[in-house]
């Protein structure tokens, strides 16, 4: 019983009990890391993440949640398409990200990525749709990357690709109110 309890409290326990993802299946072939487009920029390659989850100890679980990798995953599904053991790695990454957020263990270099996602979702929250100008302004404020892409904006505007006024759709307001109450998996 004690064993079970302990198992459930680890990340691989969570992955198994909530999503049926069995990280023990991974036999460390490295095929995922070999094909991952973002691997070169990752601090821990995908197969290493899987290995650390298999160990099931607090230290590695924490390192995984603090890794840069989980924020760099593009959800391109290259890895899972080729994984011989059919492990849904992008889905694992999804779970790790939300857990990292919850425990506030976000990798310092990933803060801007998180800021992007938050700005994105905030824009949808306000307008129901994405309004790129609004989102980028928020993102820049959040990250202080004021000068990134400044050269692109006027061209975009000239090409008619930036809208000055947001499109609106309000039907999903309630999604957000509910989301605040319980951010469950």
């Amino acid at each position: 019983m004690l064993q079970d309890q302990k198992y459930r409290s680890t990340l691989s326990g969570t992955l198994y009990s909530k999503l049926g993802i069995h990280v023990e299946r991974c036999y460390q072939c490295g095929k995922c890391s070999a094909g991952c487009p973002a691997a070169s920029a990752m601090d821990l390659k995908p197969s290493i993440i899987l290995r650390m989850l298999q160990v099931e100890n607090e230290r590695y679980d924490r390192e995984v949640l603090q890794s840069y990798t989980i924020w760099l995953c593009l959800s391109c599904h290259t890895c899972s398409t080729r994984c011989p053991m059919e492990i849904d790695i992008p889905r694992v990454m999804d779970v790790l990200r939300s857990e990292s957020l919850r425990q506030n263990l976000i990798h310092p270099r990933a803060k801007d990525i998180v800021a992007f996602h938050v700005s994105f979702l905030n824009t949808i929250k306000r307008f129901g749709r994405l309004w790129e100008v609004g989102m980028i302004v928020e993102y820049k404020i959040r990250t202080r990357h004021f000068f990134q892409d400044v050269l692109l904006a006027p061209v975009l505007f000239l090409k008619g690709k930036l809208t000055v006024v947001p499109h609106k759709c309000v039907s999903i307001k309630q999604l957000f109110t509910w989301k605040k109450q319980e951010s469950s998996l």
Partner: protein
Amino acid sequence: MKFGLYPGCSLEASSREYLESLRAIAPKLGLEFEEVKNWNCCGASSAHAIDHLFSVALPATILAQAEQQQLKDLVVPCAACYSRLAIAKIELTENAKVRNELQAKYHLSYTGTTNILTILDVLERVITPEVSKQLPKRFTKNVVCYYGCLLVRPQRITNVQRVEDPQQMEEIVKTIGAHPLPWGMKTECCGASFSITRTELVGKLCGRVLDDAVCRGAEAIIVACPMCHSNLDMRRSVIEHVTGKKYTIPVLFITQVIGFALGLTPAQLGMTRHFVSTESIVSTSV
């Protein structure tokens, strides 16, 4: 032929030429679209990066609306939106827990009757041999078809044949006279949503794509996804900065090349909005 249409955010903004070209070719191919009313954003890669259930809720709202409008076949031109909607549909039909939770919270009554189609699924149906024979122009170029990730993966969602070497786009462009070339980067990732946050990475990944396309002798890259397009087109200067090479190869939406063959002007097809000039390819085609 009538279809429901979910344009998605980027087709109204940064990739509006995609929607413009689609709307331009529609009447000539006998296509009619009914837009999903009051649609919201599908959440793209941000929602699922942060919260899974939420990433299903956003597309579920769209699907429920589509169903209310009785849209049997819903075409989703953006590959990213397509993927989110298709994943949500599977979650809703296969995962009772998620379905019940969503139903309880927002009374989303989605029964799963709406088919979700990519742009390729639609074009494949309407560009018949007869249609192709009557085209005023032919797009006789050497091209490479670029699918990126979301049109093909995960295969469980897309059901695409030959996941590492799909042929659907090739078959379509062949009917308008193009010569699709075999190449190695067809389904590699362009960096997708990291366009703003990790432009360098996008530059590197897109660099590989452009490099291979050029090496194979392609005169244009054909895409069916706004993200692929903006990364390969809009981010060209970053790519060139990262790779240290110059690339002039234009990137065209499949709807644009079809529009070309249908005799529409570059302006009608929104080609003037591109960052990389399409001049060469348009002026030398017959």
